[in-house]
């Protein structure tokens, strides 16, 4: 099945008591991308999600999947084409993990044997060992249950995935793992995903596109995470994004233009005069590398460049892949106040001071603003 596009057209959800949960929502969730619905509680983000698979029906307007109104199809049949993952996982307690994952294929009429075979593949895909398939849900940890929930939603290979706060109920460490693996998985499967969360960091991390909802069911802004952080539409969005919006923007700025310096990269054969010269130039530390040019650690320019005395390099950045946020972090963690740049194989390319990184930030921000102005 191919990924599909979801379109909201003037969708309003009003309850009989007059409460408006969603008001005049116009939104396109593009094919093969992750659209995150984010906002405070009561903003209509979950209501909007639940109208896609007809767990709720709009009062006005319509929702289209690839141009077809979702109400043209029988609700149960429609839902089998949309993977559904919820916060509490909602695994069937009376079925084994494997049979939980096999649920939708079996609803679609696939034989039990075939459904279980593909279910075992799905378990592997979400990072669970096949032996877990024989267990019952109560025997799993919260993180494992969520993985099973994701595997179950993927089992029938639906073009669309609807995910309602799927990672909110697990602890932060597990959540980080789940988010990383989810992105890796999406790189493979390229589903059209609608992802609801109240966590801005999660939205920025996962979204190709973020839709910010405000209380009362208003859609306030739809944008890429970069643009959202750079140019919030109004004070509500700015407040919602939080205080360190500027720092978080660094995540989207490439570090490939940071000016690198190789003069303080030394190996154990370095002449003592060179270290002295570095010290005279105000450099208290030099980066010692091995014969393979992998970093050994920071050594003081006042002493002998011995590996035993080296201070470890806690974090490096790869200019070809990492953001300026990683580069800055690398500089802040270094005793020399300098970030260590490495290539794909981990060989040291050079070092950069805070100031070099901040200069790159200024350039990148100016550049992205020019791009924005031109578009």
């Amino acid at each position, binding site marked *: 099945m191919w990924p599909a596009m979801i379109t909201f057209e003037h969708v309003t959800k009003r309850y009989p008591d007059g409460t408006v949960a969603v008001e005049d929502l116009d939104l396109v969730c593009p094919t093969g991308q992750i659209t995150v619905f984010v906002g405070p509680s009561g903003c209509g983000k979950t209501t909007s999600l639940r109208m896609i698979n007809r767990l709720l029906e709009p009062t006005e307007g319509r929702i289209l999947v690839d141009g077809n109104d979702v109400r043209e199809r029988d609700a149960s*049949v*429609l*839902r089998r084409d949309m993977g559904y993952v919820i916060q509490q996982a*909602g695994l*069937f307690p*009376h079925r084994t993990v494997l049979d939980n994952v096999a*649920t*939708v294929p079996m609803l679609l009429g696939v034989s039990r044997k075939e459904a279980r075979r593909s279910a075992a593949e799905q378990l592997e895909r979400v990072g669970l060992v096949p032996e877990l398939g024989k267990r*019952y849900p109560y025997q799993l940890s919260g993180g494992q249950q969520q993985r099973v929930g994701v595997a179950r939603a993927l089992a029938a290979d639906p073009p669309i995935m609807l995910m309602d706060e799927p990672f909110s109920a697990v602890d932060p460490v597990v959540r980080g793992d789940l988010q990383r693996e989810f992105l890796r998985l999406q790189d493979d499967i390229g589903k059209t995903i609608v992802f609801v969360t109240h966590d801005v960091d999660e939205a920025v991390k996962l979204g190709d596109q973020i839709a910010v909802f405000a209380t009362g069911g208003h859609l306030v802004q739809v944008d890429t995470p970069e643009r959202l952080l750079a140019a919030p539409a109004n004070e509500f969005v700015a407040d919602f994004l939080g205080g360190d919006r500027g720092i978080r923007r660094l995540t989207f700025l490439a570090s490939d233009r940071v000016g690198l310096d190789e003069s303080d990269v030394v190996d154990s054969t370095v002449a003592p005069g060179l270290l002295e010269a570095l010290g005279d130039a105000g450099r208290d530390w030099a980066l010692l590398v091995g014969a393979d040019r992998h970093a050994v650690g920071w050594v003081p320019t006042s002493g002998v460049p011995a590996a035993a005395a080296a201070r470890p390099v806690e974090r490096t950045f790869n200019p070809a892949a990492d953001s300026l946020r990683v580069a800055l972090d690398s500089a802040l963690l270094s005793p020399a106040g300098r970030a260590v740049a490495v290539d794909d194989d981990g060989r040291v390319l050079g070092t950069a001071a805070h100031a070099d990184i901040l200069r790159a930030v200024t350039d990148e921000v100016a550049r992205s603003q020019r791009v924005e102005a031109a578009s």
Partner: protein
Amino acid sequence: MNWEWVTGHLPLIGQLLGEHVFLSVLPVVIGLAVSLPLGIVCSRYPALYGPVLLLTSVLYAVPSLALFVFLLGVTGLHTTTVVIPLALYTLSVLVRNVVDGMRSVPDAVRDAAVGMGFGPLRRLVQVELPIAVPLIMAGTRVATVSNISMVSIGALLGFGGLGQLFTTYGIQLNFFLTAILTGVVLTVALAVAADTIIVGIQRLLTPWAPRGAGR
């Protein structure tokens, strides 16, 4: 204790035991057959549950002997006269447990089932009822054991299973202690056996349930 009487009356005791089993199990089967649909309907339409609960509670409060005597005038001297009240008691216990069982299905599980494309009937049969089994079985245990004890009262009508050992062979024979003791011991043993069997069935039906203490 007159063991000679016991060994001499084994066929009689066996027959009474069989009758006792029949009279206590049949009402459970009938009660289950009625309370399952009733409980399911009540959990789907909560407005109905109040009146149904009131009616079954009133029935449960009517003294069994009074009910036997009343039915005597309707159904006559027949096993039905014993089976109907016991079935009604079973029903009033089980309706609650069926509704509680349906309510024990976590919201997230129901939501996931609907969201994955289960229609109402399939959801009931494949998801909700299996999850309700532990509570329904718990009610069945209570109803069965209490039936086993209550069947004896039917002895006053001549259909009491082991209860006959208290009346016909006990009290009416000048408080013949051996017969009374035999009846008591067998009734208790039957209750324990029935309870064990039901727990065994429950374990077979629910391999998925966490086995906590006291089960």
